[in-house]
């Protein structure tokens, strides 16, 4: 079958879109290195993209995923007074909540305030809104001192 240029472009675009989605998922996966290895082995991707994934240094994949999480953490702390207060008072508990949040809720916002809203919605959904109320009151109390 002769492929037209347009068909080839659609195929390339589809392949790059799939690659992009897989890479995003790898960056927030529990095991980013394994997820990256899976991309390199994904038979549905063209050879060119599989080779690209295979070239990724595992150390660098691990580091990048860690930085993605750290930047999201900072974004949340900056965007939510309640989250910042919770982290200050109960860092281990907050860190555990954040890890679950990061792996459960896709990072779809850019600005800190939006991340704060997203986190609050997630907590509310799992019945944790009471935590944030407590830390809102604590934060307000701190600000008046």
């Amino acid at each position: 079958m002769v492929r037209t240029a347009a068909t080839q472009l659609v195929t390339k675009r589809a392949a790059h879109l799939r690659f992009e989605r897989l890479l995003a998922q790898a960056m927030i996966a529990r095991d980013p290195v394994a997820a990256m290895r899976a991309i390199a082995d994904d038979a549905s991707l063209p050879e060119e993209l599989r080779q690209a994934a295979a070239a990724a240094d595992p150390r660098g994949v691990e580091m990048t995923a860690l930085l993605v999480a750290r930047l999201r953490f900072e974004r949340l702390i900056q965007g939510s007074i309640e989250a910042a207060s919770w982290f200050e008072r109960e860092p281990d508990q907050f860190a555990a909540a954040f890890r679950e949040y990061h792996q459960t809720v896709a990072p779809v916002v850019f600005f800190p305030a939006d991340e704060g809203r997203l986190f609050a919605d997630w907590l509310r959904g799992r019945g944790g809104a009471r935590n944030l109320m407590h830390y809102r009151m604590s934060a307000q109390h701190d600000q008046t001192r």
Partner: protein
Amino acid sequence: MNRRSSSAIPVGLSLQPDDDFLGLLDPIICEHIDYAEIAPETTWWPTADGALVTNRFHEQFAALIDTAGLFAVAHGVGMSMATASTDDQARQQRWLERIRDDQQRFAYRWYSDHLGASSLAGMCMMLPMPMPMTEFSAHIVQDRLRAMQSVIGDVGIENSAFYFMLGTPLAEADFLTAIVHPPGLHLVLDLHNLYTLSVNTEVDIAAYLARLPWSKVIEIHLSGGADSDPAWLPGGQTMRLDSHDHAVPEPVWSLLDAVLPRCRNLRGITVERMEGTVTPSDVPLIAEEIHRARSASAKLR
């Protein structure tokens, strides 16, 4: 040190939305630099319905630029130059419209962003992710640069500090060359990013530099970084980070001396520091970096 007299190539400093940064570096900003680099997205605030409004730093930066007699350049991190997905299209369009409004106030002389995709399939990674260095990816980046060109005529792409690559490091130099080939598209050469790449991958810097399109280099960035915490990676491994939180290291100054004679269309050298990284003891160091960048470019005259 008189900023108006001693170098043919303007020297700039990144402005950060950080009161301590601005307060401590005010004398340097007002007296010793020619231009300010601004990440446009740091001057915005999102409303609940997704509109972008200016935050207090927007006017603060604009007033500072006016008072100090500077010009401004835009250098973002969030446009996501290599994203193929259309999930992010609406956001990018909002950003471009916001920058179009900002252009009335800042008159940015050029606008650049980082190679890579900070948004992947609609997910915000915050830092640029490497993309496969394919012809298709190059066209995506060029399309994004052309969209930016509709707002500000001169646009550029910066070599990012990726911690893993989807290809060889030398292929990145060829990839950048291919991207900026069309008229009006430029390269912002970040020498600390290049140094970081060489530390983390052992790439031959001379071989990388030999492949770059020197006539396209419009701006050079200088910054510092640090090694990562050994607790972050398995087995205590570390990597060099492009954290913009320390002095410009000597290898980066050596790179500057090596590349300056090749950059015949260079319009600026920018010293960069991140917010939250400047203490009183950093002020004379940063002043010295500005002076050193100026001296390096003055040798070319």
